[in-house]
């Protein structure tokens, strides 16, 4: 991997797109466009992490809302006891990582479909916990622990946008890095044949736990930034299967087990969000149908269709070296 990155003509359009996105708040874009780009980065980071789990490690995790919700709550509750928001953001990622370690005790004994159901229960249980448990700030009327994120008047929308930008783009580089590291090679070996990999000295449990924690940290960071932007957190929308659906959809539409899949999928998901905003009630119904349709028609997602075109292969060759 010691190849020195050469300036490649084919990389220019990508670099231009990234630069454009970085300066988006400064060139007078309408707020709604900024919101879509913001959501894109958040979804991208989370979808990348789901792809790392489901696509590359064989862990169909349905508990991602737990990570992003716990991080969001850490941030929100932190601001109530005087912890600055940036420390809350980092603390949230840490809490998510610790939580991943704790629940790995029950759920890592399960494999395949059992793992999926075991993780599905986790956000449900957390939602109950946060309905019943109100750590600070006194009782609200009607119960339920909804919190404002306090004292973030100084954090501008541009600031949250750039935070999301860094996490979104960073997650792409993190994926590249992880997949080309010993960890990634081990995961590839496990994917090809778990038993052979184990007998060759690949520590299956350790590698999977490692990816689980990495995904918790990044999902937690992205969740923290999301709730920093939203300024409010409450249990039922946070520990909600809607999040899982979004990540699943972004990854599956784009192409599971491909690096560019979540990128393409997140664009589609944000576009759908924009398109379906007027039909709020039908939005998830349509997304569900799309999910089933894509899975049956093209299991490799849009990337699978693209890969058949020569131009796409030409474009990606420069990036995937």
């Amino acid at each position: 991997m010691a190849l020195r990155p050469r300036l490649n003509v084919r990389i220019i359009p990508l670099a231009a797109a990234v630069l454009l996105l970085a300066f988006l708040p400064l060139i007078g874009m309408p707020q709604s466009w900024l919101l879509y780009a913001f959501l894109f980065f958040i979804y991208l980071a989370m979808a990348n992490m789901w792809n790392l789990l489901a696509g590359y490690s064989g862990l169909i995790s349905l508990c991602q809302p737990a990570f992003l919700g716990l991080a969001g709550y850490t941030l929100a509750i932190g601001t109530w006891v005087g912890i600055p928001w940036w420390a809350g953001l980092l603390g949230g990622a840490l809490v998510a990582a610790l939580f991943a370690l704790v629940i790995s005790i029950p759920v890592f004994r399960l494999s395949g479909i059992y793992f999926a159901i075991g993780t599905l229960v986790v956000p449900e249980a957390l939602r109950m916990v946060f309905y019943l448990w109100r750590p600070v700030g006194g009782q609200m009327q009607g119960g339920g622990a909804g919190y404002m994120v306090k004292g973030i008047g100084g954090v501008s929308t541009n600031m949250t946008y750039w935070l999301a930008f860094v996490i979104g783009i960073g997650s792409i580089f993190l994926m590249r890095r992880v997949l080309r590291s010993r960890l990634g090679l081990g995961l590839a070996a496990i994917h090809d044949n778990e038993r052979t990999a184990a007998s060759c000295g690949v520590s299956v449990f350790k590698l999977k736990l490692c990816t689980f924690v990495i995904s918790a940290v990044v999902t937690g960071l992205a969740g923290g930034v999301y709730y920093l932007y939203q300024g409010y957190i409450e249990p039922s929308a946070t520990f909600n299967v809607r999040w899982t659906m979004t990540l699943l959809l972004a990854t599956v539409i784009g192409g599971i087990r491909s690096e560019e899949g979540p990128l393409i999928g997140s664009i589609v998901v944000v576009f759908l969000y924009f398109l379906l905003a007027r039909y709020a009630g039908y939005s998830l119904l349509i997304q569900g149908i799309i999910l089933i349709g894509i899975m049956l028609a093209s299991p490799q997602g849009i990337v699978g269709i693209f890969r058949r075109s020569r131009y796409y292969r030409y474009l990606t060759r420069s990036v995937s070296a």
Partner: protein
Amino acid sequence: MDSGDIITPLVMGILLGGLYALIALGLSMVFGVMRLINLAHGDLVVLGSYAGYGLMTLLGLDPIVGLLISIPLMFALGFAIQKYLMGRAFAISSEAPLIIAFGISLVIQNANQILWTPLSRALNTSYSNLSFSIGERQFPLTYLLDFMAGIIIMLALREFLTRTYLGRAITAASQDNKAAQLMGINTKRVYGYAFAIAMMSAAVAGVFLGMTFPFTPTSGVSFLTIAFGTVIIGGLGSMLGTFIGGIILGIVQTLGGHFLGSASQMLIVYVIVLVILSVRPQGLFGR
């Protein structure tokens, strides 16, 4: 309420267990035959509840009588889901059926939401407020109906699986798919029937559930958890184990609600499921 009285929650828990077993039978069946945890099972049960609700409000049918209409419909739907969606998904990859099931779950949930609004509904009948008594204690009649329905469906499924040709074919396909094929069993058809039968039990479970608890379009996940917990405690695939698992879970829930307050009832169920998963993933009675 006299908090020293433990008999009432105990009996309620046992009766409730019958309902839980009823909810879980379909999940257990699909798992036993296809090795698939049907993530949409909870939503299919809720679909059964709404079918009962629709027939009751539109045609004025008693929910139990309404089953005569909803069972064949659910049977057909189940066969179609297996034939056109799940069957194809199995050919793609091991995670594809799971993702498809997740998609089905969302489609049903949101279709219910659009059709019936997110309001909480219940199947109220002339007998839903009646009670029966054991000694001096009064219990809701619907709980007894739940328990009886659970036993009847469980025994019927057991007899069906051991005595009829189709039932034996399903058992054979679940034990060894290839060998069953060599014996001339059309396993694809058999899978279709197995899924359809699981849906029939979901229709029955949905109606009795709706008579016992209020339900909303998003109740599916908690019912899936109950079903999964039941199956995990009882061990997958065994009908009798499922029944015992349901009763254990029912008792845990009512006793937990009795001692810790009803608000934390479902939380206790979730925690029990996670604890059992971490201690004995194959279930208390599993092999």
